[in-house]
């Protein structure tokens, strides 16, 4: 999935194993910004001002250039 925008929800983006997730934005979600089951490829995503910005479940996720402080 690419170029999507999730704002003001409970959880922004929930991703299953084997997914490619590039250039998405999750902002101001009250629980999680991005939650991913590994292995998945997460690149250039933005998750800010969520209760928890980024959660990677399991090993071997490709986590590169994501902004999730």
């Amino acid at each position, binding site marked *: *999935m*690419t*170029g*999507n*925008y*999730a*704002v*003001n*929800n*409970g*959880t*922004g*983006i*929930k*991703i*299953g*194993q*084997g*997914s*490619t*997730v590039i250039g*998405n934005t*999750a902002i101001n*979600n009250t629980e999680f910004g991005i939650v991913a*089951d590994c292995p*998945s490829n997460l690149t250039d995503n933005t998750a800010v001002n969520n209760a928890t910005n980024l959660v990677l479940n399991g090993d071997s996720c490709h986590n590169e250039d994501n902004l999730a402080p």
Partner: protein
Amino acid sequence: MRTAAGVFTIALALGTIALAPGAGAREPIKIKACQTISQGGSYEVADNLVNGAGFTCLVITASDVTIDLAGFVIIADTRRGEAIVAVPPTSERLFGLAVRNGSIQGRVDLSSADGSIVEGLRVRGDPFGIGTGITASGIVKGNTVGGGGPIAFRYRDFRHGDGDRQLRSQQWHRD
């Protein structure tokens, strides 16, 4: 000589018709009310759709369906919150659905289909608080979901072949 000129005129007219834009092209099937889509093909929403009857607005029961919202709005019934849902008529999953270019108040659930395309939707993510704004696998691109639903996007990418069908089922149920 007059006969030759006549033949030329007719041939020119036929050529003009054949080359005219849209000649021979089939138009998308217009959608003017909530309904079940049970045949593959191209569909185009032709008006805002408001579902107040307690049912899902657009139910897709066939593969290879393309729906262009053409900028119109689908407002789901407040009791169900379902705007567009894929429902296979058998145990087989659907394949190759596309939904694009419009606004949704409610949710889009293509979890029973593989290889979907969902793009250009503006979803007021399930304002009824009972589900996910967009659920799909395949290509999910350039959508916005907001408005207070529990989950905005739920995404799976199932391009691993048939071997993970069981895993796929487990994943869906685990959530």
